[in-house]
């Protein structure tokens, strides 16, 4: 580190820190969906990455459509909504056909959803081709902001960050303020009791799962602005995302945010000084080490099991 002056170091930290924030946004967007599904329902969805890919492909096709009709400047919000809806619908169907039969067997859910992810990846590959694609971004999303001479912050990163904040707030509102959220939390805490007071717990499960998938779809839409999409894009992030959720403490949304932030920042700041792979190894080792000492994660839920 000796070769850098203090200002240079500060700029490096600022820029790598911001690169970390992009990673943080993607990880958090994926982890939010997963935290709902895993934290609230205890279901391991290994195909979660593929739901993100669904969102990414939806955005890509919306952009193709927008380009041919000259609506590049305005299509993106619609793409986000479409990504959410399509991933939501697919998630709903998956719950209906697969997940609901396996609630009693979490380890088997893991294997079945892994199978599902293989099938989805192959379907993507057969339908959209193995080539990586990226959508045409509207002009306002390109370029960068320069607060000082040496710091360069890309606008798409800012956009993704904004989207993440809005969505996180939305999830919080849903879970803690809305009536349906009360149902979800009640079902998590005591399924039998929730059923006894008239909550349709099966319906709550279905909606919760579909919602988690829908959020993964939005994560996919956000992902397209910073990287290109291929059939296996989602599976690259799945283990990281699971680590984020477990590290944060499965049932705690605050924990998910904190752990996504620390994992993403640790990785991208280290990446500048040592190789990317070693940064990843060290980050994961650190997380695994902490989990070994504190298996309930950073922010443990207060539910006793």
């Amino acid at each position: 580190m000796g070769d850098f002056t203090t200002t240079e170091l500060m700029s490096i930290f600022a820029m790598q820190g911001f690169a970390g924030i992009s990673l943080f946004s993607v990880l958090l967007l994926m982890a939010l969906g997963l935290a709902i599904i895993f934290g609230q329902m205890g279901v391991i969805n290994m195909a979660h990455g593929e739901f993100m890919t669904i969102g990414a492909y939806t955005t890509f096709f919306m952009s193709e459509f927008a380009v041919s009709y000259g609506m590049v400047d305005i299509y993106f919000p619609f793409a986000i909504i479409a990504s959410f809806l399509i991933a939501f619908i697919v998630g709903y169907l998956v719950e209906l056909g697969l997940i609901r039969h396996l609630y009693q067997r979490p380890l088997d859910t893991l294997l079945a959803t892994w199978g599902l992810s293989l099938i989805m990846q192959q379907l993507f590959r057969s339908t959209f081709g193995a080539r990586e694609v990226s959508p045409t971004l509207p002009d306002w999303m390109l370029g960068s902001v320069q607060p000082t001479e040496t710091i360069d912050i890309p606008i798409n990163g800012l956009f993704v960050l904004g989207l993440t904040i809005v969505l996180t707030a939305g999830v919080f509102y849903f879970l803690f303020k809305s009536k349906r959220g009360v149902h979800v939390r009640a079902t998590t805490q005591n399924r039998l009791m929730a059923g006894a007071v008239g909550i349709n717990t099966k319906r709550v499960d279905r909606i919760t799962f579909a919602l988690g998938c829908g959020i993964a779809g939005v994560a996919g839409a956000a992902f397209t602005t910073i990287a290109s999409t291929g059939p296996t894009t989602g599976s690259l992030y799945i283990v990281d995302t699971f680590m984020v959720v477990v590290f944060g403490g499965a049932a705690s949304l605050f924990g998910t945010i904190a752990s996504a932030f620390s994992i993403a920042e640790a990785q991208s700041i280290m990446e500048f000084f040592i190789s990317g792979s070693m940064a990843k190894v060290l980050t994961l080792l650190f997380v695994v080490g902490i989990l070994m000492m504190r298996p309930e994660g950073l922010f443990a839920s207060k539910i006793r099991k």
Partner: protein
Amino acid sequence: MEFVKERLLGGKEGARGILILAVLLLIVFPLFLDIFRLNLVGKYLTYAFVAVGLVLCWGYGGILSLGQGLFFGLGGYAMAMFLKLEASDPESTKIQSTPGIPDFMDWNQLTALPWFWEPFNNLFFTLIAIIVVPSIFAFIIGVAMFRRRVSGVYFAIITQAIALILTVLIVGQQGYTGGINGITDLRTLLGWDIRSDSAKYILYFVNVVLLLGVIMIGKFVITGKLGRLLLAMRDKEDRVRFSGYDVASFKVFIFVLAAAMSAIGGAMFTLQVGFMSPSFVGIVPSIEMVIFAAVGGRMSLIGAVYGALIVNFGKTYFSESAPVLWLLLMGALFITVVMAFPNGLAGLWDKYKDKLNRDSLKNGFRSLGKREKTFDIKWPKITLPKFRKKETEVKGVPSNIRGDHA
């Protein structure tokens, strides 16, 4: 003799199963397959080691590890390091800028052999390391996790992350590990050319004998008290704990055993295939190995071998003829096995056998009527409810586990 029959072979049924498997692997395959195909079968059988380990630790112990590739890889890499050092003697590597070190190190500008490679010059050390290194890893992971009562899906996710860490590490540290290509171009074992046909035959038989040995160790474990304890732990962990058993130690033991078995498989893989690479270490191979055990039947040691063989035959066949179809089929296989046949092929076989037994029982009655043959019908034992029962039986726990252990 009784010990061999009841414990190592698992009774009459188990002995028959092992015998059929042994005949198939030792006689039928070598007679009817050419050396190329036989070598492939040998490769599949190395996965069976992992699958057998998974039956013990997942089927019986209820511990799903998604990081078995880690142990398979450690065993395989240990073997590969020895073979690579033997293949890179100063004579055959004299064109390198530093002769006497493996070629990939030379390409990565290393000028001396790293310290952790040194001991692998010794075959004896290597053979011990193949078992011991993965066992130590498994022991550390197991103690850290099970002492803190991490189980179920958390354990699965964390083992998966550890497998990912090792893969990224191997790929990233090219100079020390050979990177993404792995350790290739392995030629001889103590001067014995492992690429010749005769060597392939011999290695195949060594492999099968080791596999049968591993199965018998597994049988020994599950037919004993430990096996019953494992089942009890899987079904009602707290009850076993309250009975005074140290649950974590049993879990650590079975996890280490499964790891050691996987490592033997990895070493045999390197010997038979002639290289080792990170693509056999990471998440995808680890999960595939779980599916081998699931297809064969997670409660059947012998089923696991058939599972590994059948899935891999399928994989080879379809990847040659219809690669697109294969991933779809593999995915469908995961889902169908889990949804419809949780006990895999072995479960199907048991059902079939039950049906046969019932049929023969019916026939027995019929023939009894005709007075042609008499059948020895075992009536189910009916125990009448006892009044003033002194001891309460605990459901789901072996009957010899009672409060006096507490």
